[in-house]
């Protein structure tokens, strides 16, 4: 039987009949409505000179205010006229001017860009005739909740309120709504809209078969509960707040802010009310006892672009950041174009320049530097020592659940890998013998206690440069003493790190790790550093000189860990390994410190062999070297007890032998190639997780900077009025600045923004949400609800929804549910040629709109269909394949893009690394914004670059092959059905099947003839091709999958 969820809107309309009121003023004599009919005309053609920007109004005549337009006006010539005389067209100067023939008299002037059409004039005429009534601009007027239209018939009362609003104008035009989309289309539409992912094949089947009356509502609830809902909802929000992984200006260095993105995803998932969401982002740091999440949320205020360019002036850039923030806040929350007011009063809307800077003043307490570096010519003493690799302060440290989980996963993988290596090592009798030899050596060294795994490598010779003297002490350590300080031009000469060359005598036997201890010494007043400096900085290279040889063999260091160190950075990120640079921890400058360097290829030391250590440092005081055969893991002291017991056992058990083999494999390596690179990579990855610790940009409130109105936006102009924080003066509930009262804070601003009094926020949000699910906002220009925006197609619906949003406690999920459960949403998106003339853009909503997926979801969809998508939530941004050399034009620092080589390769698009100056080409090709500026609506283009991406980007080629691998195990007759279900949530039609079968056979013949091509195509990507499959068959199916992933239908939700 037909459940209610299958009842199409059209049937309901038939039940209701066409008894609803007609709307619109197209027919002559019908009432003209100012907001709908007149304001757009005046705003577009008249307000530029006769509007709110007084400075641009040469005549003094204003048409945007009724009193002014109706008053007598004295022109410069002395002529006294009245622009508008209500009811009297011929007496109205406005009418005389717009209909004049004389180029000197006619308005708008003949050279104006925007001229009046005949229809415009006719509307103006009727408006004056009808009394020239003004209305406050709809978006600035208080929201008004009229009940959803009721009708005489009882059926309507039971209908979804949205449908009642939509049916009124439809019925007035005699248009039938479309029927409901088929269930397969519906579930794909809903799942893509709410999660950015397609439904699985079994989900499709279950829904199609579910004939319960509330099957659709159940589906909605299930999908809304998915953790991927938050990811989907976050994408447009991240565009608005311009979330990115790099700072954008000049060197475009990386910034640490991914926890903010995770906060946004989480906020949508736990359905944080939008008013609280607003407060936490704008003023989370000011909340009493702010939680870590709230402080992370305040990172919103730090998402403006930043510079570290030498020669940039702090004051100029602070002005840029401040203006950027006003633009973002006013677009994201107020749907307003306040950007215009940086230089002049708004031409169309009542925003003034003073409003612009008063809004900016709310943020003047946000700790920020104009230039994030300390340069001689622009000193920033607080940023001393900050270089291009440093992060952008202030940040907080927090724990990332993703990183904690990833660390645990990596530990498990390391253990598994070790077990595999151990088995390999034990495979042959020769391997067994090698293990035994090695274990015997280790056993003798370990006998005397945990630290005895280290053998002394005393220095036999030590040379230095720059006049530094070296002394070898009895324990084999080396003491460095600086020469007396020299003075150049009255200043002490700057000391540079200098190379020191030490010859060491390591113990014979296997060697895997070299430990450097930096020791305090009386010669340096008990400090580890010369001259009692607070920190040392050290770089080490190692070489081996075999006995009797003169040539050194360089030894590669795989990685190095220090017990304690100061973070070193590359491009804003703390380095996991200290092997390129070890900087000591300044807090323990009087205690011994050590770092352990792990050789990439362990070596065997024979008697007489020497190690040559070149230690580059300007400040270490005394160093001692030791070596160990144990490596490939953390320092030997940290061997797990059971492993230590195994190594010490005289007669190890079989289980202990496996443990020993594992340590052996990771310390000594197996075979000729040195340490296993997989293990080394995993260890470095583990270290890179920093035990889950991570940093995020946050807002720290400091003494507010002075905010002035800048004349023409000129940051050098210090003559403007000083303004206090205040909300736009004309909006209801405005927080006015009072000289005597306390200064308003960001918290006041945030609470006003998300208040019932403010008419803009709820309208802006709900309108955008509508655009997300219907393709176009109820007011189409989602980033401008002002006079130049569009009068909503369904103003009463927009207001009803907006107040519903507020009344429901700013409950976002409730609003989403409301929208997607309407019959209007569920309509078919099939185009209706009979409506082409009447409603070409489908604004009456007699059908759904097909909509191409956003860039991130184009990618997610393909990977998901292939079963390749990694559904992890949160964490640092990831690096999918990207064409090489793409970052060549980036500098300070120069950097290479390194694609991830593990499961992170297949993560969702929302987690892709967002480089503002060079956005990933796949994202850019599908219209993702660079996020340098607040973006409320993405373009939806159709370009050859998109075709090239879907056809040739390795991500999509690999996805096609993996999809083929999923399909191949299915019985041959059902393969195409399986593929279609995965990609399109439906079965192929007969002619699709016929066409693709022909195509498949053609491809199979070609790949059979060219097996090398088959091998190549099926080898694209990181994931190895399935084993034991016919490569030609796999390649032919890959070709079919490529077709499917390139279909228009695949990247469009219908």
């Amino acid at each position, binding site marked *: 039987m037909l459940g209610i969820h299958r009842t199409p809107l059209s049937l309901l309309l038939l039940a209701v009949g066409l008894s609803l009121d007609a709307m619109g003023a197209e027919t002559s004599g019908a009432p003209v409505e100012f907001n709908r009919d007149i304001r757009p005309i005046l705003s577009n053609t008249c307000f530029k000179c006769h509007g709110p920007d007084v400075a641009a109004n040469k005549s003094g005549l204003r048409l945007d205010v009724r009193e002014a337009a109706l008053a007598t006006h004295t022109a410069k010539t002395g002529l006294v006229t009245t622009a508008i005389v209500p009811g009297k067209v011929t007496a109205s100067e406005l009418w005389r001017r717009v209909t004049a023939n004389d180029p000197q008299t006619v308005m708008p002037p003949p050279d104006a860009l925007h001229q009046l059409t005949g229809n415009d004039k006719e509307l103006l005429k009727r408006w004056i005739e009808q009394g020239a009534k003004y209305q406050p601009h709809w978006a600035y007027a208080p929201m008004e909740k009229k009940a959803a239209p009721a009708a005489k018939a009882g059926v309507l009362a039971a209908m979804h309120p949205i449908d009642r609003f939509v049916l009124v104008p439809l019925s007035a035009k005699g248009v039938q709504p479309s029927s409901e989309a088929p269930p397969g289309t519906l579930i794909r539409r809903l799942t893509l809209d709410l999660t950015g992912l397609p439904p699985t094949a079994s989900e499709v089947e279950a829904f199609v078969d579910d004939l319960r009356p509330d099957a659709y509502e159940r589906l909605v609830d299930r999908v809304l509960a998915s953790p991927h809902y938050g990811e989907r909802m976050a994408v447009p929000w991240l565009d608005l707040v311009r979330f990115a992984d790099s700072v954008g200006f000049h060197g475009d260095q990386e910034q640490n802010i991914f926890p903010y993105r995770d906060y946004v995803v989480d906020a949508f998932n736990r359905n944080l009310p939008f008013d609280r969401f607003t407060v936490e982002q704008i003023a989370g740091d000011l909340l009493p006892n702010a939680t870590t999440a709230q402080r992370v949320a305040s990172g919103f205020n730090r998402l403006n672009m930043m510079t570290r360019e030498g020669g940039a002036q702090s004051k100029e850039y602070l002005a840029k950041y401040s203006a950027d923030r006003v633009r973002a806040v006013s677009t994201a929350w107020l749907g307003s174009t306040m950007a215009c007011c940086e230089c002049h009063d708004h031409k169309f809307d009542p925003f003034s320049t003073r409003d612009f800077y008063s809004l900016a003043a709310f943020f003047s307490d946000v700790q920020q530097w104009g230039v994030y570096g300390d340069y001689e010519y622009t000193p920033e003493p607080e940023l001393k020592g900050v270089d291009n690799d440093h992060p952008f302060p202030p940040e907080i440290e927090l724990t990332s659940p993703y990183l904690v989980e990833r660390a645990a996963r990596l530990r498990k993988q390391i253990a598994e890998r070790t077990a595999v290596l151990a088995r390999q090592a034990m495979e042959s009798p020769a391997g067994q013998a090698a293990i035994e030899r090695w274990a015997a050596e280790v056993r003798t060294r370990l006998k005397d206690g945990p630290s005895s795994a280290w053998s002394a490598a005393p220095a036999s010779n030590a040379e230095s440069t720059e006049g530094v003297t070296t002394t070898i002490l009895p324990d084999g350590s080396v003491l460095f003493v600086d020469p007396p300080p020299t003075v150049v031009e009255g200043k002490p000469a700057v000391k540079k790190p200098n190379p020191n060359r030490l010859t060491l005598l390591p113990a014979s036997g296997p060697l895997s790790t070299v430990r450097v201890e930096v020791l305090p010494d009386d010669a340096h007043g008990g400090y580890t550093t010369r001259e009692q400096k607070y920190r040392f900085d050290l770089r080490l290279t190692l070489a081996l000189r075999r006995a009797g040889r003169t040539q050194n063999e360089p030894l590669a260091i795989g990685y190095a860990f220090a017990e304690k160190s100061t973070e070193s950075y590359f491009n804003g990120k703390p380095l996991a390994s200290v092997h390129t640079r070890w900087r000591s921890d300044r807090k323990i400058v009087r205690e011994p410190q050590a770092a352990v360097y792990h050789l990439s290829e362990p070596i065997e030391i024979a008697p007489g062999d020497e190690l040559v250590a070149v230690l580059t440092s300007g400040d270490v005081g005394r160093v001692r070297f030791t070596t160990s055969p144990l490596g490939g893991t953390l320092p030997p002291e940290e061997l797990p007890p059971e492993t230590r017991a195994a190594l010490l056992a005289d007669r190890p058990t079989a289980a202990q032998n496996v443990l020993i083999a594992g340590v052996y494999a990771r310390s000594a390596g197996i075979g000729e190639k040195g340490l296993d690179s997989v293990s080394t990579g995993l260890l470095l990855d583990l270290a890179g997780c920093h035990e889950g610790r991570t940093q995020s940009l946050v807002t720290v409130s400091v003494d507010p900077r002075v905010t002035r109105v800048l004349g023409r936006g000129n940051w050098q102009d210090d003559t403007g009025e000083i303004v206090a924080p205040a909300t736009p003066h004309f909006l209801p509930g405005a927080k006015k600045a009072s000289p005597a009262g306390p200064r308003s804070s960001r918290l006041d601003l945030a609470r006003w923004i998300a208040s019932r009094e403010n008419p803009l926020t709820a309208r802006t949000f709900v309108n955008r949400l509508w655009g997300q699910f219907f393709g176009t906002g109820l007011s189409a220009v989602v980033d401008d609800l002002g006079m130049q925006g569009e009068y909503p197609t369904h103003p009463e619906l927009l207001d009803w929804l907006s107040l519903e949003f507020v009344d429901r406690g700013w409950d976002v999920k409730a609003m989403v549910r409301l929208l997607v459960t309407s019959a209007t949403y569920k309509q078919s998106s099939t185009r209706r040629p009979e409506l082409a003339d009447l409603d070409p853009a489908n604004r009456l909503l007699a059908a759904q709109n097909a909509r191409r997926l956003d860039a991130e979801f184009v990618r997610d969809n393909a990977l998901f269909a292939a079963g390749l998508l990694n559904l992890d939530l949160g964490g640092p941004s990831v690096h999918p394949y990207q064409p090489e*050399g*793409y970052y060549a034009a980036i500098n300070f620092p120069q950097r290479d893009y390194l694609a991830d080589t593990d499961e992170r390769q297949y993560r969702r698009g929302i987690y892709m690394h967002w480089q503002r100056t060079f956005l990933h080409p796949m994202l850019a090709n599908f219209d993702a914004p660079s996020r340098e500026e607040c973006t409320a609506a993405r373009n*939806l283009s159709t370009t050859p670059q*998109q075709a090239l991406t879907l056809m040739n980007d390795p991500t999509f080629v690999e996805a096609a092959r993996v999809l083929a691998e999923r399909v191949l195990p299915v019985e041959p007759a059902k393969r195409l059905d399986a593929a279609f279900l995965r990609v399109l949530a439906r079965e192929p039609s007969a002619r699709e099947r016929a066409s693709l079968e022909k195509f498949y056979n053609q491809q199979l013949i070609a790949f059979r003839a*060219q097996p090398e091509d088959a091998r190549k195509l099926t080898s694209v990507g990181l994931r190895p091709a399935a084993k034991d499959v016919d490569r030609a068959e796999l390649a032919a199916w890959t070709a079919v999958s490529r077709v499917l992933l390139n279909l228009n239908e695949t990247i469009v939700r219908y």
Partner: protein
Amino acid sequence: MNLPLDPELLRKRQQAWSRRTFLGKSAQAIGALALGSLVNPSLLKAATATGDQRWRGILSAPHFPPRAKRVIHLCMAGGPSHLETFDPKPRLNALHGQPFPESFTKGQQLAQLQNAVLKARGSSFGFSRCGLSGQTISDLLPHTQSIADDICIVRSMHTEQINHDPAHAFMNAGSIIKGRPSMGSWLLYGLGSEVDNLPGYVVLMSNGPGADQPVSARQWSAGLLPSKFQGVQFQSKGAPVHYVGNPDGVCQSMQRQMIDEVAELNGFCAEKTLDPEIQTRIAQYELAFKMQTSVPELADMSGEPQSTLDLYGVKEPGDGSFASNCLLARRLAERGVRFIQLYHRGWDHHGDLDGNIQKVTKLVDQGSAALIKDLKQRGLLDDTLVIWGGEFGRTPMGQGTGRDHHINAFSIWMAGGGIRPGLSWGSTDELGYRYLEDGQQMHVHDLHATMLATFGIDHERLTYRSQGRDFRLTDVAGKVVKGILV
């Protein structure tokens, strides 16, 4: 979504509907399904092949007679010193090492010279009067000297942004607010491209002597214009255009078969959904396929004679050098690409100006001049506007051994495309500090207005509606500098 306001989409939609409604209103009675079957996919393919999907510009006719059809912008990124290249200042040389007169600098914005003692720095290089026109050009630029009679040197340029990143944005888009379209995007939007198997706006990048100031992809962004108008950077490594190469193991004929199959299935979908976007999508696959052939053909310079390589000073065609990029620029111009932009990163001479400028001029001088000569001998110079210059100039005050950024004066040259050849335009004061307001000054907005004028476009009438207002390249300013036009 700005759908209803996008003129292109409106037009496309109208076209799509007019195709569908050719049966008249009675079609409604037949119903969607019956009508759909009239849309034959093979007909769609034929329509595509005729190229009727190509964007021909928002302007139906030029506002006045055009001279230029395309631009080659040689962007000297980093800010060349006008004092070492085109603007000799004997008085500055005489003042070398002396305090710089405070009357010039008081209250003015400086970059790295903030808080420094300002000293005049003269130029170490000689200048010569060149050609019949007698224009003065630095001896660092011997090849440019040889084209003196073909170029118009403008010495009165000035800008508003003193740091590289915003100054590039200002030079490209007339605004530092992100999201403003760059000039190439404006031209594509206004006029379309003359070619559909290559991007209409191509960017090439070279650098040297060292790695230098970064240049952001935002400089060729379409901003708020539809993204089809954005510039496409040709890569010096790998495929010249991202994803232009087939996947490994797929030859051109197999790629063709795949595209045909996609078109076939897309055609079925079009019949079912009546979604007019599908036709566009099919057409874009055709274009992509053409690009897969035409881009490698374009980049393959093996057919260029040795004499041409010598003219440009190309050592290895396609080596990513500025000289090679100049030759590629000519090939792009020949094929009808609308806007070609060559960045050379290597002009930010805060230190060792004398050494660095000798190196960088060696890298760019010959290629720049060869491009003019080559265009001229092929009859392309008349309708190709070539612009050579940086985002700002450099201070007459020394910064150690170099010069700092400077916004009050810099020099550029222009050639072809309706620009008067052999003309010197505008001047700076006796120390090269500031442009003279003698009626020949040229602000960046004026440059943009003049560039558009060479295309027959009134810069005030090439606009795009977004966020409730009409945006244009020249914002709310800009005057056409008529004196330099033929």
